[in-house]
């Protein structure tokens, strides 16, 4: 309902009294504190006894909801969403310059940057936690984590933040929000205000998860496993709540982007011409719309189960119920992370090879079929808890899913084949991502296979496999996309030497770290342990050294990208001579993206002699007609 108000605001912004307002982030913090205190006090009043503590388990949960509502109202939800819903005027957006990034915004580019900053910041936090874990694993005895619970909690925080914030949010929420409207020739997204409020759920989720150990350690890892969670501290509840906030944010991104892609495509942008990255975001959005409500409900069930001490998911109830619900979502989540990366390869490769995209329909079909099959493979995570007869179909579909993944892969290889490639930093990172993903995919076949799975389950081999897929596939593609679109974000470019230097650094360090994980796993190194047999120490030691280099490598790339964004040399509008629509407007783009909406008359991935130009602007289209 409030959505339409945003469209009205655009045409005639009501004149609001020029009152000084507390900076939105400070106001949000204040409102959050008030919300927490009020809701917690309410729980005390409702269940009063002289002995009851002011902050109880129930109070902490109720207070969190109060803080969440207070935070969202304070950041701008009060005047931009709630008041317009009740019939008051929206005061419009007064903040300009850098200040507009610190409040509720309705510009998809601002929202995209906010998502990128939050996911990058979280990458740093999760990365530092990983460094601490690797420091611990340099020795076979406890060092910095004196208790196994502390180590397991660190593993959980690392995994949760990486999966639900970095891997899900960076390409989907960040690049998706910024680039999709530009790539489809739209002036804005459909649910821009909802999107603007959704991004502010990310810091809530991240801080909730990061500080959850203050309420008591939790040892379940990023999966929040019941019934193990039942014996964990109150921090477990904040894991559920934090992830609830993070998934709600991604759900809003999905609803907004899927509707925008369906309805806001410019004239001539048929499904057959839709850019690959947009196809990737569309398939991911559909996966999110289906699976995120499922996991949110599961977390609400688990939260209640633990808070009210029920028996739903423990030995007296259905002990495997939570795991089944979790992995129903958990494996599609892997494709939610990876599909934008596969799409990104085929977005970048034709530009730098100057060759038409090979088998474009197959590349698109690959993404779509990965989406469709992703819900049929989940139980391979639970082979150790299943009957043999149940394993076969899941093993079969897990191996089958490599076929549509292969479509996207082979389209990339077919395009590179016999091309005269410009080996720029983005292209180099795409090649590295493809190599890493290949290792992740090949080792995935072992994990999908029942006899191998039963042997490798819970070892470092599995950890190596999914790090090659997620970090090797997604994070390298994210970096490629950042370098590729840097001129679009800022009108500036990076230094080619430092770009390649940073790319090679992380590639070498990444492989030195995670190839070792396979060997460690085969040698008997278990996951979820801070202390391990002494014979594994030398290998763990050198793996940790490589991991520290990897952490430093990401830092170098981050510093380089930030420097290039702010101070890098200015660059022409379309430095790569790419054909997609985001390059047909100024850099950085104006508030409503295009002065005149472009008209698409051909596909974007046709290169070579006589290839048609895909875009004409509206005015030219009018005169030609």
């Amino acid at each position, binding site marked *: *309902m409030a*959505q*339409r108000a945003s*469209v009205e605001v655009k045409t005639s912004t009501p004149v609001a009294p020029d009152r000084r307002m507390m900076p939105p982030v400070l106001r949000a913090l204040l409102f959050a504190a008030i919300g927490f205190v009020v809701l917690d006090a309410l729980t005390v009043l409702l269940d009063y006894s002289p002995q009851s503590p002011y902050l109880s388990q129930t109070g902490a949960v109720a207070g969190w909801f109060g803080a969440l509502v207070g935070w969202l109202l304070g950041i701008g939800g009060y005047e931009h969403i709630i008041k317009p*819903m*009740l*019939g*008051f005027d929206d005061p419009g957006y007064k903040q300009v310059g850098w200040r507009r990034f610190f409040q509720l915004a309705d510009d998809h580019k601002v929202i995209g940057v906010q998502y990128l900053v939050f996911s990058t910041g979280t990458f740093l936090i999760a990365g530092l936690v990983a460094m601490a874990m690797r420091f611990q694993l340099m020795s076979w005895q406890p060092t910095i984590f004196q208790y196994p619970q502390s180590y397991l909690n660190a593993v959980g925080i690392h995994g949760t933040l990486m999966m639900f914030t970095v891997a899900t949010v960076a390409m989907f929420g960040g690049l998706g929000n910024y680039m999709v409207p530009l790539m489809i020739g739209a002036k804005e997204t*459909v*649910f821009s205000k909802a999107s603007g409020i959704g991004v502010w759920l990310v810091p809530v989720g991240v801080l909730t998860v990061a500080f959850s150990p203050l309420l008591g350690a939790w040892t379940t890892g990023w999966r929040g496993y019941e019934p193990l969670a039942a014996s964990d501290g109150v921090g477990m509840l904040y894991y559920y709540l934090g992830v609830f906030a993070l998934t709600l944010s991604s*759900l809003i991104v999905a*609803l*907004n982007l*899927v*509707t*925008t892609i*369906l*309805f*806001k495509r410019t004239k001539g942008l048929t499904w057959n011409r839709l850019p690959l990255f947009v196809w990737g975001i569309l398939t991911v959005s559909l996966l999110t*719309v*289906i*699976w*995120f*409500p*499922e996991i*949110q*409900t*599961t977390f*609400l*069930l688990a939260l*209640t*189960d633990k808070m*009210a*001490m*029920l*028996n*739903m*998911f423990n030995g*007296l*109830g*259905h002990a495997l*119920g939570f795991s*089944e*619900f979790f992995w129903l979502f958990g494996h599609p989540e892997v494709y939610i992370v990876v599909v934008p990366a596969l799409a990104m390869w085929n977005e970048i490769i034709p530009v730098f090879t100057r060759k038409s995209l090979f088998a474009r329909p197959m590349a698109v079909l690959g993404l779509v079929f990965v989406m469709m099959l992703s819900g049929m493979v989940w139980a391979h995570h639970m082979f150790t808890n299943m009957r043999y007869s149940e394993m076969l179909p899941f093993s079969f579909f897990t191996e089958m899913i490599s076929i549509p993944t292969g479509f996207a892969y082979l389209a990339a290889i077919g395009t590179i084949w016999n091309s005269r490639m410009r080996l720029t930093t983005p292209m180099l990172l795409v090649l590295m991502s493809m190599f890493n993903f290949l290792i992740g995919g090949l080792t995935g076949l072992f994990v999908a296979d029942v006899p191998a799975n039963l042997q490798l389950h819970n070892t470092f081999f599995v950890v190596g496999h999914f790090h090659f897929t997620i970090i090797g596939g997604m994070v390298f593609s994210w970096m490629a996309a950042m370098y590729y679109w840097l001129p679009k974000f800022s009108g500036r470019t990076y230094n080619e030497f430092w770009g390649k230097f940073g790319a090679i650094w992380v590639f070498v360090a990444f492989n030195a770290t995670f190839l070792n994980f396979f060997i460690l796993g085969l040698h008997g190194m278990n996951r979820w342990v801070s202390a391990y047999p002494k014979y594994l120490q030398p290998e763990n030691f050198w793996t940790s050294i490589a991991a520290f280099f990897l952490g430093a490598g990401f830092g170098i790339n981050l510093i380089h990208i930030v420097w290039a964004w702010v101070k890098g040399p200015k660059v022409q509008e379309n430095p790569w001579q790419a054909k997609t629509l985001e390059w047909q407007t100024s850099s950085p783009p104006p508030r409503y993206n295009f002065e005149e909406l472009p008209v698409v008359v051909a596909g974007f991935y046709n290169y070579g002699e006589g290839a048609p130009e895909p875009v004409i602007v509206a005015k030219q289209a009018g005169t030609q007609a």
Partner: protein
Amino acid sequence: MAIQKTRGEMEDMRAIRTGFGIFLASLSVMLVTLVAARYLTAGSTVGPYSQWLGAITTLFMLISGFAARSARTAIVRGNNQAMQSRLGLGFWFGVLTVAAVLLQWILLNNQGVPVTLPAAEVYYVLTGIWMLLAVVSGFVLYASKARGRRIGGYTVDNHWDVDAATYFWTWTAMGWIVLYIVLYFI
């Protein structure tokens, strides 16, 4: 008099309507998960719930849902006053429905039914999550009424706010009916 909408405005409205439809479809996954949880954790056992109270709760919800739907029909016909009163009727019967569910919670507690009895815990959890959704959609229903009063009423051409609120509330009503069937009968 009907105001002619531009093609762009009609496209925008179509996008918002479809997006809202996707939102409700997505929300239905929650309902499917809750139903699955009911059978996974408690089998098909029907708990010691008051059948009378369940039927009355459902009757309240049906009245509420139909009142909200008819509020939309009223504004489509341009009858602002009828829309306002029916939205109010829908809202207050919604409040009664939530109160009736809470009464069932109290009755279960007073009967000494252990909270951890599988049939009791699924009742608490499923209806609790449903009430959370009812509070959100109930607020949207209330907001559409309050907004209508403040902006001087909706028109035949401008009533998306009422549409959205009543669609959401209808979804909530249907959600209750699904839960009523799976909790009280099968």
